[in-house]
């Protein structure tokens, strides 16, 4: 059996540090989307199997290395575990996403330029589906910054867009008043 080399979505592009900000890629993780069938209660079964139940709208739940994010109306992403058999539509999304973390003092200014969300209202652990530039994205507020997930095919564009803004925000901060 040939051992293939797993290549992450932003391989060779990240990490980058510009000014006070750092953009890093999160390692590949197992991901499944879970869309419970109409009226189905799956939270208890999920909690029993993975240790984590379904979060509220706009939130995530996590325990150990397992996390569930709310990602759309009636849709959740289970990250870091294999889902049990549920009364839900489940699709394997592993390797289909690129996850990066933007951290540093000026991260909110960078996000404000590329994302229409009211980021000041987001608390740690809040999840939103929105845009980064023209890309649809999942945005999670973390203690150390913003986790951004886009489709894997957009990895290069995401890094490009964020890099440009990181450079610009840093350059403007260095200008004399």
């Amino acid at each position, binding site marked *: 059996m040939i051992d293939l080399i797993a290549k992450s979505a932003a391989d060779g592009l990240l990490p980058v540090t510009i000014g006070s900000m750092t953009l890093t890629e999160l390692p590949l993780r197992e991901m499944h989307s879970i869309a419970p069938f109409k009226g189905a209660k799956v939270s208890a079964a999920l909690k029993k199997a993975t240790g984590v139940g379904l979060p509220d*709208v*706009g939130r995530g739940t996590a325990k150990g290395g397992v996390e569930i994010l709310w990602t*759309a109306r009636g849709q959740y992403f289970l990250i870091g575990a294999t889902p049990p058999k549920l009364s839900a539509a489940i699709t394997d999304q592993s390797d289909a996403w690129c996850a990066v973390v933007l951290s540093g003092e000026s991260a909110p200014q960078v996000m404000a330029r590329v994302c*229409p*969300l009211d980021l000041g209202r987001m608390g740690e652990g809040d999840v939103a*589906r*929105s*845009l980064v530039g023209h890309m*649809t994205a999942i945005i999670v507020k973390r203690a150390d910054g913003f986790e951004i997930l886009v489709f894997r095919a957009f990895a290069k564009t995401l890094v490009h867009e964020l890099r440009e803004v990181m450079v610009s925000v840093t350059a403007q901060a260095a200008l004399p008043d």
Partner: protein
Amino acid sequence: MRINCPICGDRDRREFYYLGASDYLNRPAEGDLDAIHTYLHIRENPAGVTKDLWHHEAGCSSWLVVERNTSTHEIHSVTLASEVTK
């Protein structure tokens, strides 16, 4: 312009896709050609309150009925389309 999505909260217009009048929710029975013609082509064009269908495309993916005023640009209400058709 901002739309207050019942699921996601107050969001920028960029996240939404506009479909058209909420008349699209009232599909007539098959075979009634006059009603289908009206359903597809005949629209009010009010200078005032109108109801439209919007899709929260870059957000939670819900279809919304947005009641707004074309003269003043006020948005009066935003309802999930699934709750309107019930």
